């Protein structure tokens, strides 16, 4: 229950502690100095509108990804092969919800309300990571998501712990600590399957074959085509380019795949002694663009599920609001 100006939630929030000021007339005095000194910008500091917009877009998109990301894994909670694995998977999916909430909170400090962000997602105006539009047909896909998708996420997110916007950086510190559990649980699932029956080994290999290229594309388009990268790097939001992070990820994967006893589906993957890195093959950026456009295998299903969950939860949100109002009224009576 909002007590003042409910029609303007952002403005209302802006008056409270550690919340953004949304008045557009503010100068950006001091901003460049803080960025140049590699300092941190905090919610009530002056900042260029474009910096605020970029962060709202990036953080809310990141939050939406965590929330939508619960679906491919949630698919296997009821069918996890043991009670222990089910409990672990539930904890992991709960973490993803938590990560989404940390990030929505961070975005809210910039003066955008939770409702605005949710509405943008439900209306299809906001994006989430296209990786979650791929299906999880087998239990091994849960392992592949943990190892490859969460592994790529960690590569992306560790540098974000030093992002120039304080609340985002702090959320990322918390998230990164929890992600390493996710990556290890995925690795463990694949390792168990890889050393199981020939059928299980085959299932693990096929899941890795499915997720390898999409996980490499999670870092975004090649540097030459990445439109927002240069400005984000100048603002210390982004610390490394898409291709640098992708390379780091590939270099990390090769020895890990060896430990798993699984191969990576890339005939061009080879150590390049001159560069001191692994070379890897061309990625199918047409596929990436198609999935972004909404043509992935699960885009429609993911959004339909998210909208249904939101609609079916409406009565809970309303009941909690009504209950809180009733209790507050009762307290008011007894105090009078």
């Amino acid at each position, binding site marked *: 229950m909002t007590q003042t100006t409910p029609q303007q939630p952002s403005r209302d929030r802006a008056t409270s502690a550690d919340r953004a000021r949304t008045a557009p007339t503010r100068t950006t005095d001091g901003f460049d100095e803080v960025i140049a000194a590699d300092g941190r910008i905090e919610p009530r500091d002056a900042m260029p509108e474009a910096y605020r917009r970029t962060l709202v877009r990036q953080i809310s998109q990141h939050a939406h990804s965590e929330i939508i990301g619960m679906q491919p894994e949630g698919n296997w909670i009821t069918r996890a092969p043991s009670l222990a694995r089910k409990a672990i998977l539930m904890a992991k999916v*709960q973490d993803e919800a938590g990560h989404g909430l940390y990030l929505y*909170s961070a975005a809210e400090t910039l003066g955008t309300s*939770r409702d605005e962000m949710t509405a943008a997602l439900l209306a299809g105006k906001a994006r989430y990571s296209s990786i979650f539009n791929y299906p999880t047909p087998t239990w091994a896909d849960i392992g592949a998501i943990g190892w490859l998708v969460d592994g790529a996420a960690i590569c992306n997110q560790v540098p974000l712990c030093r992002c120039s916007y304080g609340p985002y950086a702090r959320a990322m510190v918390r998230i990164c600590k929890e992600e390493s559990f996710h990556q290890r649980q995925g690795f463990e699932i694949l390792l168990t399957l890889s050393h199981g029956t020939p059928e299980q080994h085959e299932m693990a290999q096929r899941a890795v074959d499915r997720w390898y290229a999409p996980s490499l594309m999670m870092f975004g388009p090649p540097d030459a085509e990445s439109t927002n990268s240069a400005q984000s790097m100048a603002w210390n939001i982004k610390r490394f380019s898409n291709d640098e992070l992708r390379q780091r990820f590939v270099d990390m994967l090769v020895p890990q795949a060896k430990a798993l006893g699984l191969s990576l589906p890339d005939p061009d993957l080879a150590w390049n002694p001159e560069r001191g890195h692994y070379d890897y093959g061309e990625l199918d950026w047409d596929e990436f663009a198609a999935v972004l456009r909404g043509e992935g295998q699960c885009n429609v299903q993911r959004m339909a599920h998210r909208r249904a969950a939101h609609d079916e939860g409406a009565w809970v949100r309303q009941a909690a609001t009504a209950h809180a109002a009733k209790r507050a009224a009762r307290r008011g009576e007894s105090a009078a």
Partner: protein
Amino acid sequence: MSAPDQTAGEVPEREWPLWEVFVRPARGLSHVHAGSLHAADAQMAIGNARDLYTRRGEGVSIWVVRSADLVASSPDEKDELFDPAGDKVYRHPTFFTASEGVPGL
């Protein structure tokens, strides 16, 4: 507080208010700001804070306060609030050097 705009069976959907969460990591330590969350009331805020910020034993006690009720200094006041401390280096023990080498000082 009453809810005069509510008719039976129909509650307008409004965003739950925002709460700031403070967690005491262990006995003997102060509560530290952990983050924020939405909840309909204080009791729900404590419950949500438990689920959101203490999933791995990060705390032994939680404070929640409505974000709208927190009062903060403004970045514009930074100079008048904090500059006066800048030229009072004698408030630090390292300012005094005459006692160097004297035992117990």
